[in-house]
């Protein structure tokens, strides 16, 4: 009886194990091997030695350094801005009754849209063409080439679009966190005559701090993997636009003109993983002292 159950259970798990084994577990081991095989030739399937050569090569590649820089700037700007702004909006939502549901629905809309498609709309709003300065320039009364212009204007558009895209998730999570704070705390604080600012600092913020912290971690992870949003705005040749990201660099190593460099791709992907892992670890360490888990 017991044996039979064993066999049956593995049979139920078999499809999952097969898929995970072939497309997750094996690639995971394989990527480590690729990363240390130096000068791997994809056609002959040969390599010259085992070592850290790929990592050295990637880290001294100007294009990778540019991608690293772009990604870091994007992360440092968009994570705090989007988290802070969503907190503000979620607080606003939780303070009103009429129209609350309608606002929530609208705010969630960007989550279910195709990044590439809406990215094109952003591009058009900012784009300056031979016909027109574009709507954004017109509203601001400026004449800036946002899409093909200077580095920081391009970065600005990228950050704005990224924030627009990541807000729905954050607003949703924060609104439900705020709704789950026990109302008795607020009532007690009001009876004691505490000011709104004090209630926010002493009750609301501590109660939702695990959620905020969760959003910061997932925000970091998501922003470090930025790629599609940039393609939507600047096209597939991100290096030409100077707007490539780490993930974009990995893909460049796989195909197109620079393709077939699996060792470099693996090294770059592992560097990305190491960065994300380290930052998540620091965040967790930091949160032990700051975040109140109920």
């Amino acid at each position: 009886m017991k044996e039979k159950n064993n066999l049956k259970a593995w049979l139920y798990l078999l499809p999952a194990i097969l898929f995970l084994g072939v497309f997750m577990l094996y690639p995971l081991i394989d990527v480590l091997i690729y990363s240390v095989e130096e000068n791997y030739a994809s056609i002959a399937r040969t390599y010259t030695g085992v070592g850290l050569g790929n990592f050295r090569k990637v880290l001294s590649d100007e294009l990778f350094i540019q991608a690293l820089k772009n990604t870091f700037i994007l992360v440092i700007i968009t994570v705090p801005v989007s988290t802070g702004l969503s907190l503000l909006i979620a607080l606003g939502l939780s303070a009103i009754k009429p129209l609350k549901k309608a606002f929530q629905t609208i705010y969630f809309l960007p989550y279910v849209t195709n990044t590439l498609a809406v990215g094109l709309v952003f591009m058009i709003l900012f784009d300056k063409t031979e016909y027109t300065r574009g709507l954004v320039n017109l509203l601001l009364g400026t004449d800036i080439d946002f899409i093909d212009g200077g580095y920081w204007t391009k970065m600005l558009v990228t950050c704005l679009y990224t924030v627009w895209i990541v807000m729905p998730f954050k607003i949703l999570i924060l609104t439900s966190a705020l709704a789950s704070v026990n109302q008795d705390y607020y009532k007690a604080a009001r009876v004691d005559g505490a000011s709104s600012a004090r209630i926010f600092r002493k009750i609301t913020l501590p109660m939702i701090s695990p959620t905020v912290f969760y959003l910061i971690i997932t925000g970091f992870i998501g922003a470090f993997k930025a790629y599609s949003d940039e393609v939507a705005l600047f096209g597939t040749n991100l290096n030409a636009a100077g707007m490539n990201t780490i993930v974009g660099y990995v893909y460049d190593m796989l195909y197109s003109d620079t393709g077939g460099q699996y060792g470099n791709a693996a090294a770059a992907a592992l560097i990305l993983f190491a960065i994300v892992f380290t930052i998540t670890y620091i965040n967790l360490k930091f949160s032990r002292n700051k975040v109140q888990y109920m």
Partner: protein
Amino acid sequence: MSEKKGRTGTKVLIYLLLVVWAVVVLFPFYWMVLTSVKKTSAYNNENVPQIITADPTLENYGKAFTEVDLGRYFVNTVIFTVSTTMLMMLVTVPASFAFARLKFRGKDLTFALFLSLMMIPTELVIITNYVTVVNLELNRGARTFLGLILPSVTSVFYIYLLKENFEAIPDELYNAAKVDGTSDLKYLLKVMVPISQPTIVTIVILKAIECWNSYVWPRLITRETKYFLVSNGIQAIRESGFGRQDIPAMMAAVVVVSVPLIVMFILFRDKIMAGVSRGGTKG
């Protein structure tokens, strides 16, 4: 009295903030639809972009389908989305059942291993998956679909979500079914799946959205434009097609690609939002 006034003032400020953000969210959608119904010649003559159009036209939608093979990309995406989601359910449901209900040796260890795979980012495994697909020639001809679908099937997170849901179903039900001589499979299909229907629907919707929007993997392996998905189609229009010259037609294509998702959102709003707040990680 003055406190009441202050509170009304705060309320006004709050609504102002909420309305401003709603405009920021909705405006790109409005602009997308608006531009798609402007005449190309009129659009190109607008030195000052017009907020409304007096003379709407649907001709851009015709162009979106004739100048590139948008219809085919649409069908491809539907095939990809439906097959991937179905396969995902065929993998997820039995696995969740095994973890939730069956007793077997090594269960805890296997489950821990599954969970740890949840932390692995796609970017890390995509390299080998790309090599695998190229080596097996799953990027040639109609086999492209296999190359697109197979690596996209597994989602450990959904196994975890469904397992939690299955476990919430009382043991008594299972034991009673056992006494009646119902087989595990029959119990799974006739009792557990129907009871867990809300969760299953949520998972299906979330996966379908993910598939509809996938861009990176299809772009990586698709060699022939015949097998493009809508995201690739949109990007191709932008880069080489009529996009740069004909923005209204490009926006028509963008609207066509976005509509199925918006419709799905309107139909399943509560399920989608509940599902994402339980387990989405995008952001």
